[in-house]
Structures are given as C-alpha cells and as structure tokens.
C-alpha cells in the first residue's frame, strides 16, 4: 500500500525536487504551496507524512504544525529548515515533530529520513537490535511523550555507538524541555565534541545561549515562557 505524503513548501523548485527524489518509491505525493493550502489538503485527505517547510510567507511551518495538532491530526511531520534558521527543537517536539532536515539535502538523505520516519511506528522495545533502531525508538518515545523511557533508550543507544552526536543532541532537547538549560547545553556541547560539524546541536546550543529563559511562572505545559533576544 502506497504511503501518502504531503509536501508543503512555497518554492516551486523545492516541491519539484522532492517530487523527483521520492518518485519511484512506494509513495504518492501531493503538493501544497503554503500553510493555508496545506490545511485545506489535510481536511480533504489522510496523509502518512508531511514534509513541512518552516520559513514560508503567511503561516510559517511552526504555525501550520500547531494548527494541525489543534485539529487532532496525528500525522508524522518532517520539518525542513533553510540555512541559518534556528531549529525550534523543543517547541516542535511538544507539537509532535522531532525530525528536521536542512536544505539543501541530497536525495539519499531525504529518502533515508522519510523511510525511517515511516517505519518508526512498528518498532518494539523488545525487538531493538542495533544503534539506529534504538535511536528511532527513542524518537518514537519522545513523540509519544514517554520522556523517561526516551531518556533511558537514548542512554542505551550511546553505549552502542559512542561516536554519534544525535543521541546527545536529543538528550539536550529533553533537558531543555525540563528547563534544565545548563544540562541541555552540556549535552549539546557533548554532541559537538563528537562532531563539530553537527549543525542541529550547534544551532540548539546557540539558541539556548541567546534566548533568555525566564525563571518566573515556568510550567511544563503548553506555553513557552521564553523571550527571544
């Protein structure tokens, strides 16, 4: 059965390149030119995955994501970022999106990511074998808001691959979710120590350094008490 994918990006050349990259796999692809268009399409069909550009005129990607969740639509989301845009990883995580890909990306990069996102739901804790599966399962836990389990699995995954920056980055995101900024930064730095070119950790670290987190009135609920610098 073909998986149904919605590509949301205001740039035509991006929509076309994604259509090409994902063409002969087991996917059918629909295109949306902006946030409003995406919401209309979502009301008319069911999708397995949305590729969502963050920087768009009108409704930006995060706003679209929020609206999708407000409507109770559970679909998988991959956020697409352009160079220099800060990944609002924690915000996205609270809205059930944990996968980011930065433009430009190679065909194999996007295909691999789409595949792992779509196959994530079948993973069972008892059947995890290698590092990748542990990492994916941890992401699944984060998306399902099983944060303690996610942390446990992430720590386990590190023992299977000590070189990988990704688990550390995700532990950082989790720490940030719990408002433990120093610990979050420690994790982001650990990720960067393993791979100085790992952009997500670099951006996350930069973001936590720039934003002022206000101590007063913090809660772990929906509203973020962060001021952007």
């Amino acid at each position, binding site marked *: 059965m073909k998986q149904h994918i919605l590509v949301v990006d205001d740039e035509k*050349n*991006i929509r*076309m390149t994604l259509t090409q990259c994902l063409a002969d796999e087991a996917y059918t692809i629909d295109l949306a030119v902006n946030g409003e268009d995406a919401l209309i399409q979502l009301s008319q069909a069911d999708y397995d995955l949305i590729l969502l550009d963050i920087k768009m005129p009108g409704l930006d990607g995060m706003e679209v994501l929020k609206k999708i969740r407000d409507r109770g639509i559970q679909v998988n989301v991959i956020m697409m970022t352009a*160079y220099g845009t800060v990944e609002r990883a924690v915000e996205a995580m609270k809205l059930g999106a944990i996968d980011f890909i930065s433009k*430009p990306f190679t*065909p*194999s990069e996007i295909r691999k990511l789409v595949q792992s996102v779509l196959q994530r739901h079948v993973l069972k804790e008892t059947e995890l074998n290698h590092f990748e599966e542990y990492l994916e399962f941890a992401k699944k836990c984060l998306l399902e808001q099983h944060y303690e389990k996610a942390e446990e699995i992430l720590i386990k995954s590190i023992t299977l691959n000590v070189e990988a920056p990704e688990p550390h980055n995700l532990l950082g995101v989790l720490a940030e979710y719990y408002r433990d900024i120093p610990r979050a930064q420690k994790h982001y730095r650990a990720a960067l120590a393993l791979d100085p070119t790992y952009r997500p950790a670099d951006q996350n670290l930069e973001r936590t350094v720039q934003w002022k987190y206000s101590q007063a009135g913090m809660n772990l609920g929906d509203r973020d008490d962060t001021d952007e610098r």
Partner: protein
Amino acid sequence: MKDKYIIIVGCGRLGAHVAKMFTRSRNSLVMIDKDATAFSRLSEEYSGFTIEADAVEQDTLLRAKIDQADVLVATTDDDNTNIMIAQVAREIHHVPEVMLRIYDPSRAKIYEGTGITTICTTLLAAEAFSQALGSQEGVTAP
C-alpha cells in the same frame, strides 16, 4: 546520470543552461550564486535548491553540503574564481567529478593532473568556427 547530487556555482547564462540540462535526468541540483537575481535565469522546470552566497567563502560550500556532492561545476564569469572553487572541491573535499569553465586556457596548467575537467569556451568556440568554415567550403578537415 541519475540521482546525482550536483552543485553548480554561477548562475550566468552557461550555469543556468547547464542546470536546465541536468534537471532533465533525475538529479538533485544546488545552484549557488552571489546574486539572487541571477536565479531568474533558471528555467521554469528547474528542480533543486538555490543558495545566494559567495562560493569563494568556505562556509558557503559547507552549507551546500559539498562533501556529499557527486559533481561540482564551476561556471562563474571569472576564471580565477572557477579555478579556486574547482580545486577546493577536488583537492579539499574530494568531489568525484569537478568541471570548470575558463576563458583563458593558459591557466589550466595550474591544476594539471588533478582530474579536473576543463571546458574552455574560447577553444571550443574556435574549433566550432573552424569546423563551420570547413563544412561551408566543402573542405574536410585534414
């Protein structure tokens, strides 16, 4: 040529045309130019990414994910820029296929032996003229 990750530097007439031809087969293209208005030369069917930045800056190439590139084509209007970018792609980032356009063929000696493919517009045009002349007069080339 399918599914290759191709970076083109310089969206002049040549660069835009090369992009058009590469788009036909299924490739993933990244077009880099210092000036975003140059992207208007890209055809309607262009499918790929665009980056407005100076490719002489190392950061730009990293941002374009040059270490994952299968092909790099340097088609700016400046020979020296093309020569530098091609060498960086080949010698530093080990891009498997690197091609550049130059006007002045005598500069090609710099990177001789590095496996960079040179497209010298001056020489190609001269050859084309010579062939055209030969066929017009009904004379076959020796």
